[in-house]
């Protein structure tokens, strides 16, 4: 019995066996619906062509035999659409070419609006996303410390907590009496009914932490979370426009960030993403125009197995070339001490490099001439996205709830030791014009 992972390989096979027909009726769009069932979308002129209909019907029977429960019965296997509709379909994502077949594309219908394969262009104000596959790697702590370090140099930093399902960044940097009344979740819910004006001016608070610069914090929820679970259930909804169109969750979030930047004019925006591979994380990593995406990693098989899923997805969807230049691995919670840290970092760097070589770097071929513009790096090349910036493990920073107090008491040298490579990398990336 055919299973989900066999759909594409089987389609490759049967389309190859019916290459003449496929070529004649191109473009062919293979529509994989929400239930994982496949239909073929063709130009409506073939609906009226009797001879073509016979051949297509025979093809549909072959598809049903090959795909089993993942195909429709032959009489329901086709959707016929106009030229205009086909063009519109192909410009949407997620869409990827069927491997080995020109003119045949696969569209995946997903229950969620987020899409890992669609990469938004960078914005003017540098946005940096802090991402991890797993929680508990010190991502939010590193973000808070980075914001503090950047602000200590006189920068105006805007911190946005998009880890809506597991928020906490704001509590680390704002004492209770300084938290704003509202948060991101409130804005996303109110914006659905065009009421975002009621919350916009009271969802940002200035942290007192920095003496030299400014840290503006936009929390997931405000001083009173209210009916947070009920609000959270709605934040991913698209907004329906008067003509029946809809604005996706990620586009709504982008418009919020644009508005926050216009209002607060930060030098840099640091975004705490949700961990894992899901629609919210998808929006943070790909749809917010981030110039830098920090991939937090602990050394271990699970980490690389999970990142391999993500990288492979980008590669097969043709998004790898757009996203890879914005990535950087961050080695999290690195054991301190030259022996412990050195060995650990060495292993992590090698595993990261292996993965990047496998999925994201251009393959080096013997016949490639010197000077060719390839995106590829040696293991020890610090400029490569695989080469980790690291964050040391330090007990003092282990409890994020206490970070506000900790940063006030801990000396700058200790922060530099623990987070230095990460912060230095951030500064160079965000404020060096060559990187933008």
């Amino acid at each position, binding site marked *: 019995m055919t299973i989900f992972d066999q759909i594409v390989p089987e389609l490759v096979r049967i389309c190859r066996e019916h290459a003449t027909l496929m070529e004649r009726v191109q473009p062919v769009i293979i*529509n994989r*619906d*929400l*239930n994982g*069932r496949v*239909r073929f*979308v063709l130009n409506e002129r073939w609906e009226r062509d009797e001879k073509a209909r016979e051949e297509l019907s025979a093809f549909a029977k072959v598809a049903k035999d090959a795909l089993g429960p993942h195909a429709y019965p032959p*009489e329901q296997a086709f*959707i016929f*659409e106009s030229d205009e*509709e086909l063009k519109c379909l192909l410009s949407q994502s997620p869409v990827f070419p069927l491997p080995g077949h020109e003119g045949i594309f696969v*569209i995946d*219908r997903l*229950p969620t609006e987020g899409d890992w394969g669609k990469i938004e262009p960078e914005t003017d104000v540098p946005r940096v996303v802090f991402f991890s596959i797993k929680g508990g790697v010190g991502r939010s702590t590193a973000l808070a410390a980075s914001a503090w370090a950047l602000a200590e140099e006189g920068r105006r930093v805007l911190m946005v907590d998009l880890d809506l399902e597991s928020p906490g960044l704001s509590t680390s940097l704002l004492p209770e009496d300084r938290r704003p009344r509202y948060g991101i979740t409130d804005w996303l819910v109110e914006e659905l009914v065009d009421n975002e004006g009621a919350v916009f001016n009271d969802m940002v608070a200035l942290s007192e932490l920095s003496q030299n610069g400014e840290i503006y914090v936009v929390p997931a929820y405000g001083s009173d979370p209210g009916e947070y679970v009920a609000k959270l259930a709605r934040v991913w*909804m698209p907004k*329906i*426009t*008067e*003509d*029946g169109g*809809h604005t996706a969750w990620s586009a709504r979030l982008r418009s919020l960030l644009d508005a926050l930047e216009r209002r607060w004019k930060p030098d840099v925006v640091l975004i705490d993403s949700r961990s894992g591979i899901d629609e919210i994380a998808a929006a943070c990593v790909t749809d917010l125009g981030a110039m830098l995406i920090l991939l937090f990693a602990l050394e271990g098989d699970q980490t690389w197995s999970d990142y391999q899923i993500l990288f492979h997805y980008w590669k097969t969807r043709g998004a790898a070339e757009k996203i890879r230049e914005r990535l950087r691995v961050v080695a999290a919670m690195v054991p301190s001490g030259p022996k412990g840290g050195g060995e650990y970092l060495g292993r992590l760097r090698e595993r990261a490099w292996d993965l990047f070589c496998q999925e994201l770097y251009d393959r080096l071929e013997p016949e490639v001439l010197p000077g060719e513009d390839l995106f590829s790096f040696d293991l020890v090349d610090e400029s490569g996205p695989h080469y980790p910036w690291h964050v040391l493990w330090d007990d003092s920073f282990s409890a994020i709830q206490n970070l506000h107090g900790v940063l006030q008491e801990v000396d700058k040298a200790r922060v530099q030791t623990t987070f230095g490579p990460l912060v230095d990398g951030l500064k160079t990336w965000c404020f060096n014009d060559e990187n933008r």
Partner: protein
Amino acid sequence: MTREMSIKNADFPDAHERHWKDAELLLDKKRLANADHLYGLSAECGLKALMQAFGMQVTSFGHPEGKDKVHVERVWQRYESYRWGHPFGVRYPLPLKNYFSDWDINHRYSNRRAFSKERVESHRRGAIIVRRLVLRAKREGLL
């Protein structure tokens, strides 16, 4: 389950499509009055196709019953009841504005000069909104 091809049996998706195509042909020929009727019928059949996918009960001939036996100007509201009862319903919203609030099946008796271009264009926009939902439902596997 395939239904026998009898004229008694309802086939909402097909009816939605044929009413739409003929409405477009009529509009192109400036046959405003009859185009207007068909935009309304197309939208009605499209919404009922979706309602059936969302769980609307029908007779053995596939026809709606009771409160669902209404035309487009009231189906626009009835649709919401079914949409919210289905897990995928949230993906198929209609705008608040009912584009067919001024449409009536009894307009089939009216003088052709009573149908302005603006009226027909407005109903066409409403029919397009429904058409997009039906297309989405076909692509996502709901229909």
